[in-house]
């Protein structure tokens, strides 16, 4: 078969449940319902939120959600694309699925003239930190204490940043 075994697709309203299921079963953080609704509710017509499902052999195994961040009022967050969720089922890791999802976010960022990606990672999540660093991310600033609220993992987080 010439077709790639890993593919990405949009998150349609009917399949939002799959996205929720993946996020909730992979990540230790519990998100509110409104967080997921953002994906299917296109606010004021402007594209600021991006999400995809990743399929391995046509089974949904990974998910990504990112949003553009503006810095008009000089807030803490700088310009760029912020990755809110990037998750792949444990058994399907190491198959290039996460990389593909990251590539998607990067290309969307470029399309919108953004040249930086940001992500929060729990400070004890060594695997994820290594994974991001391997793909050109670097730590940005100090550890944020008590960043995560509804989590079973560490509450502290660091910001990783990639510029291109």
């Amino acid at each position: 078969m010439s077709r790639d075994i890993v593919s990405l697709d949009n998150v349609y309203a009917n399949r939002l449940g799959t996205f929720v299921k993946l996020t909730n079963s992979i990540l230790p953080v519990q998100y509110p319902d409104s967080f997921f609704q953002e994906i299917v509710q296109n606010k004021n017509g402007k594209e600021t939120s991006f999400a995809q499902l990743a399929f391995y052999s046509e089974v949904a195994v990974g998910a990504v959600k990112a949003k553009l961040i503006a810095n008009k009022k000089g807030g803490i967050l700088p310009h760029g694309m912020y990755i809110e969720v990037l998750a792949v089922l444990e058994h399907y890791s190491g198959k290039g699925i996460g990389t593909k999802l990251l590539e998607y976010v990067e290309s969307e960022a470029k399309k919108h003239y953004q040249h930086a990606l940001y992500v929060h990672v729990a400070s004890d999540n060594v695997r994820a930190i290594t994974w991001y660093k391997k793909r050109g991310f670097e730590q940005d600033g100090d550890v944020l204490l008590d960043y995560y609220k509804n989590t079973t993992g560490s509450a502290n987080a660091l910001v990783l940043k990639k510029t291109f």
Partner: protein
Amino acid sequence: MPPRKFLGSKNLAGRAKEHSQFLEALKLYESRQYKKSLKTLDTVLKKDSLNIDALALKGLDLLSLGEKKDAENYVKNAISKIQSIGASAICCHVLGIYMRSTQNYAEAIKWFQTSLDNGSANQQIYRDLATLQSQIGDFKGALASRKTYWESFLGYRSNWTGLAVAQDINGEHEKAIDTLSQFEKLVEGKLGEPELYEHNECLMYKNDIMFRAAGDNKDKLHNVLNHLNEVEKDIFDKYGVLDRKAAIYHKLGDSKLASKYIRMLIQRNPDDFQFYGRLEEALGIQNDNEKREILYGNLQKFYPRSDPPKFIPLTFIDDKSKLEAKFADYVIAQLKRGVPATFGNVKPLYRSRSEFVPISDKVVNEFFQQVDPYKDPVSYVWTCYYLAQHYLYVKDFSKAESFINKAIESTPTLVEFYILKGRILKAIGKLDEAAEWLEEGRKLDLQDRFINTKTVKYLLRANNVDKAVETVSLFTKNDDSVNGVKDLHLVEAAWFIVEQAEAYHRLYLESNKRLHEKLSAVKTQGLVEEDVESQLKELKQLEWSTKKYQGLSLKRFQAVAKMYRQFEDDQLDFHSYCMRKGTPRAYLEMLDWGRRIYGNPMYVRSMKGASQILFQLHDESAESKKEFDETFNGIMKENAKKSKKVNSQLNKHRDEERKACVAYSESEDKDVFGLELISSQNPLEVFWNEFYKSYATKSSEEARDYVLEFEYQYRTGKLALCLAALNKYAKYHGEKSGLTGAMAITLLLATRESEPFEAIAQKVAFKGCESIKDLPVAERDNQEFDWCSFFTEHYEQDLPSLLFLYKHEPRQGETYKALILNQISTVRPQHQMQVLQYQL
């Protein structure tokens, strides 16, 4: 009976004007201007209120306008006058059309026939007559009609085809072949492009008849073959030709050529199991396993991607180690690829050869040990899925659950796993939890209709009707209704309606039980002073739910039966359509299908469901009903004021409830809850008319349910027919079968003098009982005789027979109950619960 002879209008001259007015009205009817037609008729009837023609036509006009009741009155009026005055040919024709439109086909035939007898020159009537005769199964009559019509209109192929089909059905094969051949000669060389298809169908149909008529006669078979070779170039159905050739050579005993053609068929479709069996037969090796193995070995090489060559050897190889190796090849290859249906593929083997169960256990578990979920997650999860199904099959529920949990944990996005999880929970009897898991799976993809449907089914099994309706309505058209129930009736979604009927029935049984418990508690202890209102409310609510659920259940069962009557009726158009389109082969298949529809599992299921309700309504003695009413009404009367208040509270919701249950448009059906249906004075008659008649008269003898027949006739008091049912049952299921014994005992005890059956019927039944082997008829009147022990000693006791006796022999009810409890200890918890909750 309509008169045979046209008596004519006595003073035709005086009525000439009216007659021409009538003809005008007829024209208006034909051009569908029913209202204008009615107006014209009214002027006729004003002058001559006895004008039968006008009365009849007025009936037909009204019917076309949807005024069924009025239409019926006019037609009845017309018919009653015909008895004395006689009728014109036109009038009879009009009446025939009316009868046909009201689905009264036998009557329609009578009137059409009379119209012809009374001198109608309208030859078209013969065509309509043939259609109606075919519809009611009067093929002899249909042949005569087709023939007459054919004689008048020789220029149409459809008439020739129709005649040939009628001849064929009546067993006149030679004549049918002749008819088809004559027409072929007539059209030789004159066929245009558009006629080629029907021509090819008729050629093949002729070959069909020849083949059927040939039997095993070799000369005749050679003829069939020659004919086939002759027409082959004109036939479109290449598959049919190969199939026929293979069959002919097989019958001729030419295994070489037979197998050649079957191999060609296999090449066309290597996934069709039937060809492989036929190939074995043609080669004469169906009993030689060694040769079969070689055959399938070769076929596997030819068709490496096809299932049958790999699967079939598993059904006959005896050598245990070889079998295990073959099985492993078969299963592991699929598991490696992650084929979801792997277990489904081997399940037939579990059933036919139980030695596969341990083999499968071993082989797949070994494979599972070495699958790395990180390296090959797809294979891993589908193997978990397989093992979960395997353990569900062998009733090791905890293992089944642990494997499905593994699969869900690994890949929580595959909906199949949620369905299986639900199935396992269902088997353990956790119906609510099962439905919740289905719901969880459903959320993964809201536009997946399959999981939607499954979820609805599980919700109904858990008696959660409201949620089920809400869920199913996501996929239905809800334009003029608050939910999808009406649409599901319109699209004949029998799966939903029957499940809903069964859910309602269970809800009925539950609320009925609670109602009686509550009522007897109140009766003995009285109402608690400070809480009278809420108790009255509970009682009323229970009483209403009981009625409502029972009515709705029956109503839904009836809806399924209605669908099947519609299916039968839908054939009507095809008696002429298939002839015009030149598809006699498809037509004959349809007739065959039509003969068997009432034996369809869905119909039988609905009929049996309805029988439970209607038989119970019949069995409920008037006394116990009266007693219930007196107690209930008594309590309400004592607290009349509060009762009234409660009533108005409850009535507020009635309208909403009604809207949620509407199944048909209100103009057609006012009995939304089925309350009229359950308050029928004669439940057995309802059962006969709505359900049993079609089944009893139209399903084949072997397929019929003789226990149901017994139960029905027992209640009608026709013990002789019970005896017949018993004998038939014994014939098909064995004399030692549990139900044979249960029915025999029940029948014998029904012949005791104390039983309320007719003396003659009892005598006949007793005589029949005397000839039943081992049945101790002499003990009939012995009040102390232990029938239960007799039963267990002489018959194979099983659940259905014990339940049968439990219901019919209350004297030893407790003993039977104990046996039933013992019996269900080995079945799935799900079935145990069903018996405990709803049967005992």
